[in-house]
Protein backbone atom coordinates (compact mmCIF):
# COMPACT_ATOMS: atom_id res chain seq x y z
CA UNK A 1 0.00 0.00 0.00
CA UNK A 2 1.09 3.56 -0.74
CA UNK A 3 1.20 6.10 2.12
CA UNK A 4 1.84 9.80 2.50
CA UNK A 5 2.89 11.00 5.95
CA UNK A 6 2.48 14.61 7.12
CA UNK A 7 4.55 15.96 10.03
CA UNK A 8 3.33 19.22 11.59
CA UNK A 9 5.71 19.72 14.52
CA UNK A 10 9.45 20.19 14.84
CA UNK A 11 11.96 17.88 16.49
CA UNK A 12 12.14 17.54 20.29
CA UNK A 13 9.33 19.84 21.47
CA UNK A 14 6.60 17.35 20.49
CA UNK A 15 6.50 13.59 20.01
CA UNK A 16 4.87 13.97 16.57
CA UNK A 17 8.06 13.61 14.53
CA UNK A 18 9.18 10.52 16.48
CA UNK A 19 5.80 8.82 16.06
CA UNK A 20 5.73 9.68 12.35
CA UNK A 21 9.23 8.29 11.97
CA UNK A 22 8.38 5.05 13.74
CA UNK A 23 5.21 4.63 11.67
CA UNK A 24 7.13 5.32 8.47
CA UNK A 25 9.92 2.87 9.31
CA UNK A 26 7.45 0.20 10.32
CA UNK A 27 5.40 0.62 7.13
CA UNK A 28 8.57 0.30 5.02
CA UNK A 29 9.69 -2.77 6.95
CA UNK A 30 6.32 -4.37 6.23
CA UNK A 31 6.82 -3.82 2.52
CA UNK A 32 4.58 -0.80 2.05
CA UNK A 33 5.54 2.25 0.06
CA UNK A 34 5.86 5.75 1.51
CA UNK A 35 5.51 8.00 -1.49
CA UNK A 36 6.33 11.15 0.43
CA UNK A 37 6.85 12.58 3.90
CA UNK A 38 5.65 16.16 3.89
CA UNK A 39 6.89 18.52 6.61
CA UNK A 40 4.49 21.38 7.26
CA UNK A 41 3.98 24.06 9.94
CA UNK A 42 6.81 23.73 12.53
CA UNK A 43 7.45 20.31 11.00
CA UNK A 44 9.83 22.08 8.60
CA UNK A 45 12.27 22.38 11.52
CA UNK A 46 12.92 18.65 11.17
CA UNK A 47 14.90 19.62 8.07
CA UNK A 48 17.61 21.58 9.85
CA UNK A 49 21.22 20.48 9.43
CA UNK A 50 22.32 22.24 12.61
CA UNK A 51 21.00 20.05 15.43
CA UNK A 52 23.46 18.68 17.95
CA UNK A 53 21.24 16.91 20.49
CA UNK A 54 22.70 15.17 23.56
CA UNK A 55 24.02 11.72 22.66
CA UNK A 56 21.55 9.87 24.90
CA UNK A 57 18.55 11.45 23.15
CA UNK A 58 16.92 10.56 19.81
CA UNK A 59 18.88 11.87 16.82
CA UNK A 60 15.61 12.38 14.97
CA UNK A 61 16.92 14.62 12.17
CA UNK A 62 19.73 12.16 11.42
CA UNK A 63 17.25 9.28 11.59
CA UNK A 64 15.06 10.87 8.93
CA UNK A 65 18.15 11.55 6.77
CA UNK A 66 19.36 7.97 7.16
CA UNK A 67 15.94 6.53 6.33
CA UNK A 68 15.75 8.79 3.27
CA UNK A 69 19.11 7.49 2.12
CA UNK A 70 18.43 3.80 2.87
CA UNK A 71 14.95 3.74 1.38
CA UNK A 72 15.05 6.50 -1.21
CA UNK A 73 12.40 8.35 0.80
CA UNK A 74 11.09 11.66 -0.52
CA UNK A 75 11.33 14.12 2.40
CA UNK A 76 9.68 17.39 1.38
CA UNK A 77 9.85 20.59 3.44
CA UNK A 78 7.15 23.11 2.55
CA UNK A 79 8.75 26.26 1.17
CA UNK A 80 6.21 28.75 2.56
CA UNK A 81 6.32 27.30 6.06
CA UNK A 82 10.13 27.03 5.86
CA UNK A 83 10.57 30.68 4.88
CA UNK A 84 8.61 31.78 7.95
CA UNK A 85 10.72 29.61 10.22
CA UNK A 86 14.20 29.92 8.78
CA UNK A 87 14.87 26.69 6.91
CA UNK A 88 16.72 27.34 3.63
CA UNK A 89 18.31 25.35 0.88
CA UNK A 90 21.17 26.69 -1.28
CA UNK A 91 18.90 28.21 -3.89
CA UNK A 92 16.70 30.02 -1.35
CA UNK A 93 19.66 31.26 0.69
CA UNK A 94 21.20 32.75 -2.44
CA UNK A 95 17.95 34.29 -3.60
CA UNK A 96 17.42 36.04 -0.27
CA UNK A 97 21.13 36.84 0.09
CA UNK A 98 21.31 35.03 3.38
CA UNK A 99 24.56 33.76 4.83
CA UNK A 100 24.26 30.02 4.37
CA UNK A 101 21.66 27.30 3.88
CA UNK A 102 20.73 24.98 6.75
CA UNK A 103 18.68 22.28 4.99
CA UNK A 104 19.84 18.82 6.01
CA UNK A 105 20.88 16.30 3.33
CA UNK A 106 18.05 14.02 2.26
CA UNK A 107 15.42 16.78 2.48
CA UNK A 108 14.19 18.97 -0.35
CA UNK A 109 12.18 22.19 -0.30
CA UNK A 110 9.06 22.37 -2.47
CA UNK A 111 5.58 23.86 -2.66
CA UNK A 112 2.25 22.83 -1.18
CA UNK A 113 1.32 21.24 -4.50
CA UNK A 114 3.55 18.35 -3.42
CA UNK A 115 1.23 17.69 -0.50
CA UNK A 116 -1.92 17.84 -2.62
CA UNK A 117 -0.32 15.70 -5.32
CA UNK A 118 0.64 13.08 -2.79
CA UNK A 119 -2.74 13.07 -1.11
CA UNK A 120 -4.36 12.45 -4.50
CA UNK A 121 -1.97 9.69 -5.53
CA UNK A 122 -1.42 7.90 -2.22
CA UNK A 123 -3.90 5.41 -0.85
CA UNK A 124 -3.60 6.61 2.72
CA UNK A 125 -2.64 9.92 4.33
CA UNK A 126 -1.65 10.21 7.97
CA UNK A 127 -1.07 13.44 9.88
CA UNK A 128 1.20 13.66 12.93
CA UNK A 129 1.08 16.87 14.91
CA UNK A 130 0.29 18.62 18.18
Amino acid at each position, binding site marked *: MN*FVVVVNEGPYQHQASY*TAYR*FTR*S*ALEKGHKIMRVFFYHDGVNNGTSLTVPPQDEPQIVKQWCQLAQDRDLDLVVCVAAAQRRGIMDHREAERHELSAPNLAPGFRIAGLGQLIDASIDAERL*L*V*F*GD
Partner: protein
Amino acid sequence: MLHTVNKSPFEKDSLNTCFRLARPGSDVLLIEDAVYAALAGSCFEPAMSEALARYSVFVLKADLEARGIDSGDLISGVRAVDYSGFVDLAVKNDTVQSWL
Protein backbone atom coordinates in the same frame (compact mmCIF):
# COMPACT_ATOMS: atom_id res chain seq x y z
CA MET B 1 -12.35 4.39 9.20
CA LEU B 2 -9.42 4.82 11.60
CA HIS B 3 -9.40 7.70 14.07
CA THR B 4 -6.14 8.48 15.86
CA VAL B 5 -5.97 10.69 18.95
CA ASN B 6 -2.72 11.87 20.57
CA LYS B 7 -3.86 14.15 23.41
CA SER B 8 -4.54 13.44 27.05
CA PRO B 9 -8.31 13.68 27.69
CA PHE B 10 -7.53 15.49 30.96
CA GLU B 11 -5.78 18.29 29.10
CA LYS B 12 -7.51 18.70 25.74
CA ASP B 13 -10.91 18.11 24.16
CA SER B 14 -9.68 16.10 21.15
CA LEU B 15 -10.84 12.68 22.32
CA ASN B 16 -14.30 13.98 23.20
CA THR B 17 -14.58 15.41 19.70
CA CYS B 18 -13.43 12.09 18.24
CA PHE B 19 -16.12 10.24 20.21
CA ARG B 20 -18.72 12.78 19.04
CA LEU B 21 -17.83 12.52 15.35
CA ALA B 22 -16.52 8.99 14.80
CA ARG B 23 -19.16 6.69 13.37
CA PRO B 24 -20.03 3.62 15.44
CA GLY B 25 -17.96 0.68 14.24
CA SER B 26 -14.87 2.83 13.68
CA ASP B 27 -11.41 1.92 14.90
CA VAL B 28 -9.96 4.40 17.40
CA LEU B 29 -6.22 4.32 18.12
CA LEU B 30 -4.81 6.19 21.12
CA ILE B 31 -1.19 7.28 20.70
CA GLU B 32 1.24 9.51 22.60
CA ASP B 33 -0.47 11.28 25.55
CA ALA B 34 -3.91 9.93 24.56
CA VAL B 35 -3.01 6.54 26.05
CA TYR B 36 -3.85 8.02 29.47
CA ALA B 37 -7.50 7.79 28.38
CA ALA B 38 -7.26 4.01 28.71
CA LEU B 39 -6.26 4.16 32.40
CA ALA B 40 -8.75 2.33 34.64
CA GLY B 41 -10.10 4.25 37.61
CA SER B 42 -9.82 7.75 36.18
CA CYS B 43 -12.71 10.17 35.84
CA PHE B 44 -12.57 9.50 32.10
CA GLU B 45 -13.35 5.78 32.48
CA PRO B 46 -17.15 6.13 32.07
CA ALA B 47 -16.70 7.97 28.74
CA MET B 48 -14.20 5.35 27.60
CA SER B 49 -16.45 2.46 28.63
CA GLU B 50 -19.28 4.01 26.65
CA ALA B 51 -16.95 4.45 23.68
CA LEU B 52 -15.92 0.79 23.88
CA ALA B 53 -19.52 -0.18 23.19
CA ARG B 54 -19.34 1.70 19.88
CA TYR B 55 -15.72 1.48 18.73
CA SER B 56 -12.77 -0.88 18.67
CA VAL B 57 -10.27 1.00 20.83
CA PHE B 58 -6.53 0.39 20.50
CA VAL B 59 -3.54 1.87 22.32
CA LEU B 60 0.06 2.09 21.14
CA LYS B 61 2.16 -0.25 23.28
CA ALA B 62 5.39 1.78 23.28
CA ASP B 63 3.47 4.82 24.51
CA LEU B 64 1.85 2.81 27.31
CA GLU B 65 5.16 1.35 28.51
CA ALA B 66 6.91 4.70 28.43
CA ARG B 67 4.20 6.15 30.65
CA GLY B 68 4.31 3.32 33.18
CA ILE B 69 0.95 1.84 32.23
CA ASP B 70 0.86 -1.97 32.13
CA SER B 71 -1.90 -4.19 30.82
CA GLY B 72 -3.40 -4.52 34.32
CA ASP B 73 -3.96 -0.75 34.43
CA LEU B 74 -6.08 -0.70 31.28
CA ILE B 75 -9.83 -0.42 31.05
CA SER B 76 -10.91 -3.86 29.88
CA GLY B 77 -11.66 -4.12 26.18
CA VAL B 78 -8.86 -1.77 25.14
CA ARG B 79 -6.30 -3.58 22.98
CA ALA B 80 -2.58 -2.78 22.79
CA VAL B 81 -0.85 -2.75 19.39
CA ASP B 82 2.74 -2.05 18.33
CA TYR B 83 3.84 0.22 15.44
CA SER B 84 3.32 -2.69 13.05
CA GLY B 85 -0.26 -2.99 14.32
CA PHE B 86 -0.69 0.77 13.79
CA VAL B 87 0.33 0.29 10.14
CA ASP B 88 -2.08 -2.64 9.83
CA LEU B 89 -4.94 -0.51 11.17
CA ALA B 90 -4.11 2.20 8.63
CA VAL B 91 -4.10 -0.40 5.85
CA LYS B 92 -7.34 -2.02 6.97
CA ASN B 93 -9.29 1.26 7.03
CA ASP B 94 -9.95 3.34 3.90
CA THR B 95 -9.24 6.69 5.57
CA VAL B 96 -7.44 7.96 8.64
CA GLN B 97 -8.49 10.98 10.67
CA SER B 98 -5.98 12.42 13.16
CA TRP B 99 -7.66 14.27 16.01
CA LEU B 100 -4.83 16.44 17.26
